[in-house]
């Protein structure tokens, strides 16, 4: 198990990572996500040993590795730019950790290349600089795996690849994690990547862990509007909440008609916002659900099998509904129409400040 204790890193007067405590189980696929500048790369570089923490510690399987040099740490980092050694062939790159580190996965270069789905016969003796981006990424991965790390750290290694290749490599990484029973820690700003691959998600905001949990749990009950927003495609309504006395709140708002009763998901903290996902909302000419808001339809975007309906309310707040294409064809909505933006009350997600 990997643990950090009040891990902190300051750059001058800015604090990039603020006393972070995380725990990652052995063999887990953990993702650290957050917007640019949230401290995720700083955190990863401290875990790899390339950056010294200002204070706090890192413990791996009960052993304090805070001061361990990167070359002595059982971690290996797959860099965003891959960092292949340009003067070496693919084979020499992969042999590098095997020759220098005295620890290795006990697999041949050929087996490692097959593990990352590269044809050894075709690629093993090519120069590293002759490869395409996706191939370099795979070689960098094979090279890190050859080190046989206890923890494989990945710093957005897919970011500069095209979309289809990203999807494919995401699946392959998840497979490798299971196959090798190695802890993977993946840093990304792309939520989609994290959702597909991870067992556990750490959402970082301004150097702190904003929420931890299984991806679906965080998606279903975000702890804050920041997380709801980051998890994507959410309409946010500012609300007033009244406790009902039996562990629930009655929620009303200036921004929509009707009232919503929500469970107390946040230890008695009053919800200040309601979050409703795009695909839980619809737009109809009349109000047919208990909650909704009168809007002007500003734009209609057909997105393959779903349709995005962009609306603006009289309060000048903008809302978006994502509806199935077939359903859209059954309603009479056009750009410029006056209509009702609405949703089923139980789809409302209460969020405290």
């Amino acid at each position, binding site marked *: 198990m990997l643990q950090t204790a009040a891990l902190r890193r300051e750059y001058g007067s800015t604090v990039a990572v603020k006393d972070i405590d995380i725990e990652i189980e052995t063999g887990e696929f953990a993702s650290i996500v957050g917007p640019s500048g949230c401290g995720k790369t700083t955190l990863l570089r401290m875990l790899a040993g390339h950056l010294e923490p200002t204070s706090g510690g890192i413990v791996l399987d009960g052993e304090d590795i805070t001061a361990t040099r*990167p070359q002595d740490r059982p971690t290996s980092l797959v860099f965003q730019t891959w960092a292949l050694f340009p003067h070496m062939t693919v084979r020499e790159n992969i042999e590098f950790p095997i020759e220098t580190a005295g620890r290795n996965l006990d697999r041949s270069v050929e087996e490692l290349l097959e593990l990352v789905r590269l044809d050894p016969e075709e690629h093993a003796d090519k120069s590293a*600089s002759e490869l395409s981006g996706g191939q370099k990424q795979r070689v960098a991965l094979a090279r890190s795996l050859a080190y046989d790390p206890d923890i494989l750290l990945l710093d957005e290694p897919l970011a500069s690849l095209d979309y289809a290749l990203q999807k494919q490599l995401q699946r392959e990484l998840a497979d490798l994690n299971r196959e090798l029973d190695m802890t993977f820690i993946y840093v990304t700003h792309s939520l989609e990547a994290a959702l597909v691959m991870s067992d556990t998600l750490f959402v970082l905001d301004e150097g702190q862990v904003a929420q931890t949990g299984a991806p679906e749990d965080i998606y279903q009950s975000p702890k804050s509007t920041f997380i709801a927003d980051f998890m994507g495609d959410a309409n946010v309504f500012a609300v007033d909440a009244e406790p009902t006395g039996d562990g629930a709140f009655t929620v009303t708002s200036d921004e929509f008609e009707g009232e919503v009763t929500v469970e107390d998901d946040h230890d008695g903290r009053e919800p200040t916002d309601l979050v409703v996902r795009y695909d839980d909302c619809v737009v109809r000419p009349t109000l047919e659900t208990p909650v909704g808001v009168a809007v002007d339809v500003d734009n209609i975007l057909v997105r393959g099998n779903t349709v995005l309906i962009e609306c603006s309310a009289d309060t000048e707040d903008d809302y978006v509904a994502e509806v199935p294409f077939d359903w859209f064809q059954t309603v009479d909505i056009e750009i410029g129409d006056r209509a009702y933006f609405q949703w089923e009350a139980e789809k409302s997600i209460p969020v405290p400040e």
Partner: protein
Amino acid sequence: MSTKHRLKSHFDRAAGYTRDSSNPLFALVRPPWLFMAPIVALLLFMFVGPMLAIVVFSLQSGNTIDPNPLHWTLAHYAEIVTGMATGTGVYGQVLGNTALVSAATVLATLVVSYPAAYALARKIKRYKVVFLLLLIIPLFTSVNVRVFGWALFLVENGVLHSIFNLVGIGQYPSLLYNRYTVLFGTTYVYLPFMLFPIYLSLLTIDDVTFEAARDLGAGPLTIFRKIVFPLSMPGVVIGSLFVFVLSLGADVEAQILGGGSVFTMASNINYSFGYSQNWPLGSAQAVGLLLITIVAGVVILRSLDLREIASRGESR
């Protein structure tokens, strides 16, 4: 001719174009060649012409050019080559001195510059520009001035002598006029030509390459042996080539610091043209030096994989 080209020439004719690409004169006035014209003219005038004259002179028996090629002679070459091949006489000595000074200068500049280039490229962040300027500034001063300055420093009853007298060391062997002083001179003068190529090649190594190596278990020595040194090889090779070729032509250092006791090929050419007024012999030596320089250059450059160097920026 492809259909496309046929069509194009057809349209060009129809449009009244008179430029015919088969006329080589038109090719010469196209901009790329026009841009090259001044330097080509300069090199033809300043280098190719005089070199031809030197080659012709080297075949003469006296200080005038005999228009009849049948009277030309290879005697000077025979004299030089025999001397050099057997390592005897003036030419054997000259070749020995030149080879020794050049090779030793390469070695000495390499040993002195590599650590400095490494520190400047990787370690020193503050005052780096100051250091680089200090290394460049000597190049702004004429070689003669610098070498004479050094001679004044070393000469008997010179500056160093005075200092030694002050601390009570009265007698010491003369520091001027031997091979090692010449070697010190060339090392000092050609140092920047070794340092900067190495410095630049070390600069091309990405920081993340070091991190990746450390990350994969490599300590400082392994990183130097397997990453830094191989990646700086182009700089080392080019620096060595510069220093070697420049040292082959070292003349001022040999004359002033060697003081007539150490002859190198360049100073001997100077001597042949000047003091002994034997132009054909000087010319033959000049041709020989040029050939040695060209061969050394080709051999050294062949060891470089220029494509790998060019692709380095793309490896990320």
